[in-house]
């Protein structure tokens, strides 16, 4: 967008604000929805728009929030950071009370300074970059999805506390996902100080044989292997470990929590731990949310729909409980009171991450992944 475009949107925004501010305070609660609604990544953003529509229709039909109807302000940022700043400015000037979004981490990061400045709550169902909450730079930001490092945190805590790991070999497949997981795992182990990282290495995906790495696991006397990556390499590593009579525990991520892993690794998969999303498919509210989507749009919802539904419910409930759209009051409610959502009972911590969403540990038992409570 050009400078003149930006200017135009600010001017329009100011004009609209001037007209609306006194009016909306009495009339409606404005829920901004920002994310990719067109372009390559629209499939991530559109389910969140649907989620907002479903929730808002239900609330409005039941008389609104404390007598006020909820109105949607939908803005498309195409997951582009430069568009996201425009969208954020527009939403602020249009008088949004809370924002559902943004979708992509990059776009979210670009928009957040504007919301912070305006003291406007933004809650993302899908931006997983750890720094968004951990940096502490964006106090108005919340999210209903676990950040990328949560799995590594869970894996490390599980290995050290439940399995009593002292010497941990951290392996990865050199890919973005696997290496990112492994780097977080190494960081958490070193920060915790209760166990040591005896080796940190990447393996070559597709290589016919991992015996050198496996011998090293033995040489460093690792009692636990934490692996970041996908199932083909994981099954090869675990099989070669067991073949070489290495009994170390194997802990991994949701790239490994896949039935193909069990199929390929066979009996060697037994006892392997892997983290995966908490199973919410049995929650009544989850089923209800899916059914509402099918009824309204005639199709099954896409990815992030449950998380977006949860974010919408969380924000609107907090407004209702606070009986205000004031930033401080709503934030206090978000942080202090649990709310029922399709992804479970959640509230938010100081940094803005949802407690109660995320991952749980699974273990392969008799050829199936069993959730460990």
């Amino acid at each position: 967008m050009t400078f003149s475009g930006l200017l135009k949107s600010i001017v329009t925004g100011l004009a609209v604000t001037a007209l609306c501010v006194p009016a909306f305070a009495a009339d409606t609660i404005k829920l901004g929805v920002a994310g990719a609604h067109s372009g390559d990544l629209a499939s991530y953003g559109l389910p969140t728009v649907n989620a907002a529509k479903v929730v808002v229709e239900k609330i409005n039909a039941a008389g609104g929030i404390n007598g006020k109807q909820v109105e949607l302000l939908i803005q498309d940022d195409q997951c582009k950071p430069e568009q996201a700043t425009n969208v954020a400015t527009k939403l602020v000037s249009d008088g949004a009370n809370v924002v559902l979004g943004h979708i992509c981490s990059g776009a979210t990061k670009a928009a957040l300074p504007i919301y912070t400045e305006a003291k406007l709550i933004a809650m993302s169902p899908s931006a997983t970059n750890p720094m968004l909450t951990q940096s502490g730079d964006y106090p108005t930001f919340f999210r209903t999805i676990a950040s990328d490092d949560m799995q590594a945190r869970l894996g490390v805590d599980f290995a050290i506390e439940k399995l009593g790991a002292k010497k941990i070999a951290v392996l990865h497949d050199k890919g973005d996902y696997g290496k990112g997981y492994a780097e977080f795992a190494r960081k958490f182990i070193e920060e915790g100080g209760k166990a040591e990282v005896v080796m940190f290495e990447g393996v070559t995906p597709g290589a016919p044989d991992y015996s050198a790495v496996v011998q090293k696991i033995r040489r460093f006397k690792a009692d636990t292997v934490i692996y970041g990556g996908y199932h083909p390499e994981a099954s090869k590593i675990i099989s070669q470990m067991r073949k070489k009579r290495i009994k170390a525990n194997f802990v991994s991520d949701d790239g490994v929590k896949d039935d193909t892993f069990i199929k390929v690794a066979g009996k060697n998969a037994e006892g392997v731990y892997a983290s995966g999303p908490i199973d919410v498919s049995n929650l009544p509210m989850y089923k209800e949310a899916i059914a509402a989507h099918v009824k309204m749009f005639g199709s099954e919802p896409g990815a992030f729909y449950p998380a977006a539904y949860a974010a919408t419910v969380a924000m609107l409930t907090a407004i209702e409980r606070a009986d205000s759209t004031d930033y401080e009051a709503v934030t206090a409610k978000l942080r202090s009171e649990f709310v029922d959502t399709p992804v479970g009972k959640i509230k938010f911590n100081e940094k803005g991450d949802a407690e109660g969403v995320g991952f749980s540990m699974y273990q392969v038992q008799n050829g199936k992944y069993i959730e460990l409570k």
Partner: protein
Amino acid sequence: MDWDFFIELGLGGLTRGSIYALIAIGYTMVYGIIELINFAHGEIYMLGAFTGLIVAGVMGIYGFPAVAILLMAIVIAVLYCAAYGYTMEKVAYKPLRGAARLSPLISAIGMSLFLQNYIILAQTSDFLPFPALIPDFEFMEPIAHIFGSTDLVIVVASASSMAALTLFIKFTKLGKAMRATAQNRKMAMLLGINADKIISTTFIIGSSLAALGGVLISTHSGQLNFMIGFIAGVKAFTAAVLGGIGSIPGAMLGGLFLGLAESYAAGYISSDYEDVFAFSLLVIFLIFRPSGILGKAPVEKV
């Protein structure tokens, strides 16, 4: 110096090297005779693994003992791949015999992609488990933690098939004809050697060894998909070049050399650099000894 670790890595490298050597022979034999780098060779290896899997699956249903399944899987995979190698040469390379050198090379790449896609369509693009057909031998148990039964079988099978191949080339009439064709195809033809037949034989032998490798390695690694031929092929090709492309003992030596080098690099430095190490070796060789360990520098004929 931690000798135990050194020996462990050496044995690991030996297994890996034997695998590379088995596949490298196919590259080097074909190159020796028609100066073609057969890029589809890795796919023949992959086909061998798939054939072995199908045989193992069918025989597994009838409850045959693992050793019988392994032998049968190898025999059928070898026959099947030999037929593939023969057909591939007739279809993709023979019509281009007189063409510029680049044409059969492109044809080889095309063949490689064709075979990968054929497996995706006819079988699957998923990873499949490969049954462990090599039982844990009782007498290997004391050292199973460093050198298991599958390692033993792979090394023994590779060594004996290579020995058999060497004897075949040295002492049989067909072997002599192959050497003659490799040295000078025109001269060999003038002396009454049927060069087409020799080339076909070369493809059959190379493909058979690749099939053997495919079955053995898949039972070692426990899995396969349509892409396994690519990395194995690239590594084996590197081994063939290291050893001196065109030379059969060179391919064996190159395979072992590469396998050991990778294993020690992964063990003492980091497996992050395994591939970097393998291909750096290749570059160094290409600079300082382009003809490889055992290769002869080409003599310009005037």
